[in-house]
């Protein structure tokens, strides 16, 4: 892990456009890794993609938050913007501890700035009060 300075080659597909270039990326170091060279791309966007994927990959994540008093026990959630891949588990830990009260509406902010990422955790499912659903059942 520490102090490894040998260059290595990563191979992955560029997903920026339908060309789907097979990128070969020469990388040095580990935390954070540094891109030395990119080959296999057909356009400059491939280089940008390779550098961001290797040096600072960003990801959106989705999970669920427990709901008290709802027709369902979970409300699905997602980050409102991509976060650094390395922060994913820290954010998941805060999502795990979070409990929401019904009703929950799509777009409700259930967490602010988890793990210092600056993102918001948004509800992506409507969860009604338990009683309301009871009526609907008829």
């Amino acid at each position: 892990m520490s102090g490894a300075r040998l260059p290595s080659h990563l191979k992955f597909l560029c997903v920026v456009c339908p060309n789907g270039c097979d990128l070969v990326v020469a990388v040095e170091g580990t935390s954070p890794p540094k891109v030395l060279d990119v080959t296999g791309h057909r356009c400059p966007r491939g280089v940008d993609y390779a550098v961001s994927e290797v040096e600072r990959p960003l990801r959106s994540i989705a999970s669920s938050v427990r709901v008290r008093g709802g027709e369902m026990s979970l409300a699905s959630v997602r980050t409102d913007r991509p976060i650094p891949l390395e922060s994913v588990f820290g954010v998941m830990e805060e999502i795990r501890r979070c409990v929401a009260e019904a009703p929950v509406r799509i777009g409700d902010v259930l967490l602010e700035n988890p793990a210092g990422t600056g993102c918001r955790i948004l509800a992506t499912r409507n969860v009604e009060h338990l009683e309301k659903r009871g009526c609907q059942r008829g």
Partner: protein
Amino acid sequence: MKCEIRGVVVIGGGPAGLAAALSAVEAGCRDVLLLERDIRLGGILNQCIHDGFGLHAFGEALSGPEYAARYIDRVRTHDIEVRTGSMVLSLSRDRVLEVSSRNGYGTIRADAVVLAMGCRERTREALSIPGARPSGIYTAGAAQNLMNLENILPGRRAVILGSGDIGLIMARRMVLEGASVEGVYEVLPYASGLPRNLRQCLDDYGIPLHLSTTVTEVLGKGRLEGVVVSRVDESRSPIPGTEREVPCDVLLLSVGLIPENELARGCGISLDFRTGGAVVDETFMTDVPGVFACGNALHVHDLVDWVSVEASEAGREAADWAVAFRRGREPEVPVSLPVKAGEGVRYVLPGRLRGGRDAVLSLRVLAPGRDRDVILRVEGRDVLRRTFPRVHPAEMLRLAVPGSDLPPGGVVEVVSS
């Protein structure tokens, strides 16, 4: 018993049925009925909480429930009757449906029907893996339902058989919820999921993908204790001596989806053995007049966005049919000719072309490749030729074909550019 008389009846309230019902009412049909067997609309999108839906349709990355809600909200504000908890038991050639609901048994006579029942997962039984029958073996979608809707983690140490997208997404989901994933095993020499999912679900979490490898035995009594995996040769037969034991307490199967077409079969609608869905023409009409098909019940899609596009078209055609039918004349069905899947093509839709009107060809290739031309050939003439820089069986190809000089029928081939 009295038979209800309705305009357009849509079977299935998932993404296809929602889009079809909306476009049917927008196209001028004033009597649209949407039947859904679950207690809520949205279909499989309800359990697909990951994002990436709607990039084409809305230009943003939505989760499944959000994508569904966009359509459900519109259905609610339109004049569409929705009946949840209603399961269609049968469909006849004169478009009479038998329906079971909380109100009991009933029959509906429809002017037009849209089949939007979606698909189901292939199971272990379809693969015939030898060994015991312990608990802990799930289809990936069943595990997704347990985790995302019921808050149940199906196991702590997972093996995933098949590299379909649901399996890849579940691999990440399990890791995020604290389980470990030993690996994903794929019998084919290439992955069947989308590149985006391979990168973001496996590579990100260091989950290994083992190609040309499959599960050859299930171990454990009562509860799953492990699986035996083996390398396979070019004919997908396990190679003796390559067996390896992998301990695990849950095995997820992501080995393909099959359009759900019991209703179509019962109705005598011709099915395509390659897609598992109905044979339709460019108006999405089956060979039973007035019955249309769309979504994953027609063929398994890679992206929901295309399901919505296709289903909107099917809904519009169903509305046109129903309106004409209501005016007292059964519309005439123009002659159509078969479209064949030629060299390099696994399947192509529509399976029949009337010609003379705009159409969209949807197809899947047999093998991955670069710089390939898709050709529509009619009687030896290239009617359409389009180049794709990269093709993959996991990704559907869609080609708009202008109708002006489009003859009926043809052969679609994929060849090197």
